[in-house]
């Protein structure tokens, strides 16, 4: 049994719930333990290339660092905070540092859970599962699939547009109005072409008898087994266990939205 075979809807559900639970807490330990757990599970039970994983993880690492940075330098100052360092309007407190670390690790814990999903789930399986388990209307699901198919085409067209603009001698946009014009120059041809193709695709789908009827016999059945629910329970328990560990270590803190 590998992660790639877990029912996509249950997988997504498990991860969303995990993230919702995680967002109740606000301390560095809970997310840290969750990160360790989810990375271990990803590589032990998922057929995942480390390179791809790193590629997806890197931007989050960057975001996390900036989060920490922002929170440390623009902290919510409270009475009794112990100031470690002060320079001009910048103030670094021990509490600020901990909050920053909590926030950064929180982002990373969401990320590792999400990447676990993304790298072990095929888009088609996800949509099929959403239709079969979550009663997503076929009209919308196949509509998304049809749109998704356009991606490689759009990517190719984008590169062609870049080349075509070079040949026409379009200068690189430097000012903001120029940049807006440039955005328009790319987006409009891409969209105009895509919309016309979309209308043709709709016609082609209807010509094959597609009516959006909800009673459908699927060629590929996406099943739910006991293993899928076991995965769900394991994931949720792990997050709860992380919180428990944090509590034992005396770090656990609820996230209170008040300013």
């Amino acid at each position, binding site marked *: 049994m590998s992660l790639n075979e877990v029912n996509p809807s249950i997988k997504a559900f498990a*991860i*969303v719930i995990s*993230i919702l639970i995680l*967002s109740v807490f*606000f301390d560095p330990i809970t997310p840290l333990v969750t990160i360790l757990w989810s990375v271990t599970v990803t590589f032990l039970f998922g057929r995942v290339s480390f390179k791809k994983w790193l590629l997806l993880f890197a*931007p989050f690492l*960057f975001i996390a660092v*900036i*989060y920490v940075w*922002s*929170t440390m*330098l*623009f*902290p*919510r*100052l409270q009475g009794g905070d112990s100031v470690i360092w002060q320079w001009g309007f910048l103030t670094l407190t021990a509490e600020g540092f901990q909050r920053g670390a*909590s926030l950064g690790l*929180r982002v990373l814990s*969401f990320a590792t859970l*999400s*990447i676990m*999903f*993304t*790298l072990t789930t095929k*888009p088609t399986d996800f949509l099929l599962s959403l239709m079969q388990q979550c009663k997503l*209307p076929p*009209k*919308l699901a196949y*509509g*998304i699939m*049809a*749109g*998704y198919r356009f*991606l490689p085409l*759009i*990517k190719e067209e984008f590169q062609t547009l870049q080349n075509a603009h070079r040949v026409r001698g379009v200068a690189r946009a430097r000012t903001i109005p120029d940049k*807006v014009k440039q*955005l*328009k120059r790319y*987006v*409009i041809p*891409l*969209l*105009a*072409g*895509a*919309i*016309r*193709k*979309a*209308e043709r*695709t*709709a016609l082609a*789908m*209807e010509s094959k008898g*597609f009516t959006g009827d909800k009673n459908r016999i699927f060629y590929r059945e996406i099943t739910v087994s006991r293993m899928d629910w076991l995965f769900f329970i394991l994931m949720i328990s792990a997050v709860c266990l992380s919180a428990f560990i944090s509590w034992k270590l005396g770090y656990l803190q609820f*996230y*209170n939205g*008040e*300013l």
Partner: protein
Amino acid sequence: MLAKWKLREVIVLSVLAVVFAVVYLLFLQLGNVLFGLFGLIGYDIIFGIWFIVSIIAAYIIRKPGAAFLSETVAATVEVMLGNAVGPQLIISGMIQGLGAETVFAATRWKNYSTWVLMAAGMGSSLFSFAWGFYVSGFAALSPGYVTAMFFVRLVSGALLAGLLGKYLSEGLAKTGALNSFPLGKEHKRNVTV
């Protein structure tokens, strides 16, 4: 909700969402740069761009649900692309879409003037900020900073989603690609009159 939609409209909505999912991911990189320069508020400057598909889809298709569904699908595609925040991004997308949809609903999906489009962009800003406040832990920041972030995002929603969305949709109408949609028909009438 979908029963009244033609398949053609659903697929066009989904294609809009796909194109903008790519645009969104590109802007994520720009966001990261601004983020690095200005801190968290850097994100809010361009936050409006992430609501633009709601405005464009609603403005073109003019059916209940267009704003909500397009943003949700865009988020789903971002997840499928494997580049973004993961399944909970779908929830963020739904919440952003709901923000814009609420404004369109308040006009009973009848009014698509510039002001309504801008208000819809601000609706997304409001909803997304409330959600971000909870999930991303803005409470850890100083109240002044959070307030500044909120207003920057509000303006960004009005301009980058509302106004820019209108501008792009109308540019698109000129190409004739929207001739079988309400916006395209409206455009054609204006040209011939």
